[in-house]
C-alpha cells in the first residue's frame, strides 16, 4: 500500500464512568476531517473492551480521554498492560482530557503520549498522531 495514502485508524474511547465527552466528540470530528478513520467507542468502556476493539479493528492508535477525577491513573495503565498481554504493544496509546502535569511522567514511562487538552490546536494533535504512527507502527519515516 502507498504509505502516503494510508489512513490512520484510531479508536477513541473513555474508560469508566466519566461522562465528560465534549473532548472526544471534538477530537473525533477533527481527526475525521484530517482524513483518519475513527472507531468511536464513546463513554463507559472497560479497558478490556477498548483493547479488544483495537485488536479486532487492527487500529493504529488508542486515544483515551478522561476528565473527572484521578481514575485515569488506574484505567490508562491497565490498557497498556492488556495490550502487552495480548501481544499488541505496537498499538500506540495516547491520552487527553484533564491529565494533570504531576501524573504525566508515570504515564509517559508506559509509552502513553499526547496529553491533549482544550488548549491544544488541532494541527498539533494531528501531527503528533501521524508522526508517532509512522515511526512506531508503520515503521516508515
Amino acid at each position, binding site marked *: 500500500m502507498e504509505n502516503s495514502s494510508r489512513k490512520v485508524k484510531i479508536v477513541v474511547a473513555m474508560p469508566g*464512568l466519566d461522562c465528560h465527552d*465534549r473532548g472526544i466528540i471534538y477530537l473525533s470530528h477533527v481527526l475525521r476531517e484530517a482524513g483518519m478513520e475513527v472507531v468511536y467507542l464513546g463513554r463507559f468502556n472497560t479497558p478490556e473492551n477498548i483493547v479488544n476493539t483495537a485488536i479486532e479493528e487492527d487500529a493504529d492508535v488508542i486515544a483515551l480521554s478522561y476528565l*473527572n*477525577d*484521578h481514575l485515569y*491513573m488506574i484505567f490508562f495503565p491497565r490498557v497498556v498492560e492488556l495490550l502487552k498481554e495480548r501481544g499488541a504493544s505496537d498499538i500506540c496509546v495516547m491520552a487527553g482530557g*484533564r491529565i494533570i502535569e504531576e501524573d504525566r511522567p508515570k504515564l509517559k514511562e508506559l509509552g502513553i503520549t499526547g496529553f491533549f487538552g*482544550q*488548549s491544544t*490546536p488541532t494541527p498539533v494533535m494531528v501531527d503528533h498522531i501521524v508522526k508517532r504512527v509512522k515511526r512506531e507502527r508503520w515503521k516508515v519515516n
Partner: protein
Amino acid sequence: MYRGKLWTRRVFTGLGTGMDTNERYRRLIEHGETGLYWFGDVPSFHGIDPDHPMAAGNAGVSGVSYCCLKDMYALFDGISLEDVSVSNNCPSMAAAPTYAIFAAYAEEQGYDLKKISGSVLNEPIHGVSSLYPTNCEPLDLTVKVATDVIEHSIKTTPRFHPLAPNAYDLAEFGANPVQEMAMTIAITREYIDRMLARGYDIDEFVSRTNIFGCSTDIHLFEEVAKYRAARKVWSKLIRERYGAKKPGSYRLYLSSHTLGSSLTKEQPVNNIVRVAVETLGCVLGGLQSVDPSGYGEGYFVLTEEEGLTNLNLQNILAYETGVAATADPLAGSYYVESLTSRMEEEMWKIIDKIEEMGGAIKATESGWIRQELEKGIIKKQKDIEEKKRIMVGLNDFVIPPEQEVPIKVGRDRPVEEQVATSKKREEEIKVFKEKRNKSKAKNGLEDLWDDAKKGEVCCLIPSMINALRADATFGEILGVIRTANGYSYDPYKMIDYPF
C-alpha cells in the same frame, strides 16, 4: 427581590463518605452558607451501588457516596433540615430514590415534611442528549418515575422543588444561551403535560416545577438578558398556553452554577476573576440561588479553600458592593433590553420547533437535540482555536507555566486516600447487604415491583420509601423498577437481582 431575601448562597459539596461531606457542610454553614449542595459521586449519578463492578474505585470520588438510608445519618448529622435548604443534582432515574431517601430520613428524624425545602435536579430527558445516558433511558420509564417525584412532593413536601430541570448540562454540552433555556423549557413541558394527564390542575403543581439549574458564562450582558428573556417566555407560556391563574405559577425561579468550561487550567488564579464576573451576572440577572465554580475547576472538584473563597465572593457581592439593592438593575438599558427581546424571540422559535416535532422526548429520541448540541461543541472549540473566543492564558496572553501566579490547585485529597475510601466503602456496602434483614429487604423490593407493574396510575415514591426503610439500596430499587417494566435489572448487564 434581594431587598426581601438575598439569593441562596450554595457551594458545591460532596466528597468521600457521608461523614467527610458532613464535616465540610458544618464549616461552610459557619461561613455563611444558606443552602447545602448535596453532590453525589458518579456511581450514585448512574444509580449503581458502590459494590457494582463498574463502580470500582469510584465510590466517594468527586461526590459523596450514598445508596441506602443509613448513609443519610452520617451525611446530615447535626444539621437541621428545617433550617437549611438542600439541593441535590442527580441527572438520572436515581433522582427518584434520592428524593425518597431524603424524605424518608427527614421523616425518621421527626422533621415536619411541610417545612423541608430544597430541590433535586430530577430530570433525565436532558441527560440523554448531554452528559448522563445511563439510567436516563428508557426515557418513557424515567420520565414516568420523575413525574412520580413531582406528584409525591406537591402533596407531601410542598416547599421542595421536585423537578429542577438541569439547563447547565445542556450548556456545558454545547448549547448556546438561547438553546439552553429554550430546550429546558421544552423539556419541562413534558412533565407539565404528564401531570395534566394525571388529572392535576396546572396551578396545583407548576409553581413546584418552575426552578431551573442553569449555567452562567462570562458574557455578562448576554447572560443577564438570557435570564430576563427566559422569565418572559415562561410566564407567557404558562399563562397563555396552559391557562394558569395563580401568579406563583408563572413565576420562574433560576439557580446557577457558573460555567465550568469558561475556566482554564492555565493560570488558575485568573479563574477567581472570571467567576466573580459570572457571579455578578447571576446577581444582576436576579437569580434565586447561586453556586460559583471553584478556581481550580480546571483541575478537579472544589477543595475546601475554593469553597470558602466562593462563599466570600458571594458575601462580598451581597454585603459590600450594593448590587443587590434593587431588582433588575439593568432594566431600561438599550443594549440589555434589545438583547432580551431578541433572545426571547429566538427562544420561542426553538420551543415551537420542538412542539412541532411532538415535544422534547420525541426531539431527544430522534437525535435532534443531540445533533444541535454536538454542532455547538464543535463550534465552541473551533471558536477557541480560531481565537474568536479569547481565553486569557489558554489561547492568548499565554505565559510559560513557571511565570504563573502561584495558587494552590489540584486534588482535594491525595489519590491514595481516595482509592482507600472507595475500597472501604465498597466493602462496607457488601457487609451491609450481607448483614441486613434480607427477607425484609426482599419484601420491600417485591412490593415496589408490584407497584412498578401498575404503570402510570401508581406513584412509586411510597413503595420506594418503604423499600429504603427495609434497607434496600439504590441499585436494587432501580433494578426492580427496570425489570418490572421489561428491561434488564442492571443497565450494564453485569450483575443479577440478589434475591
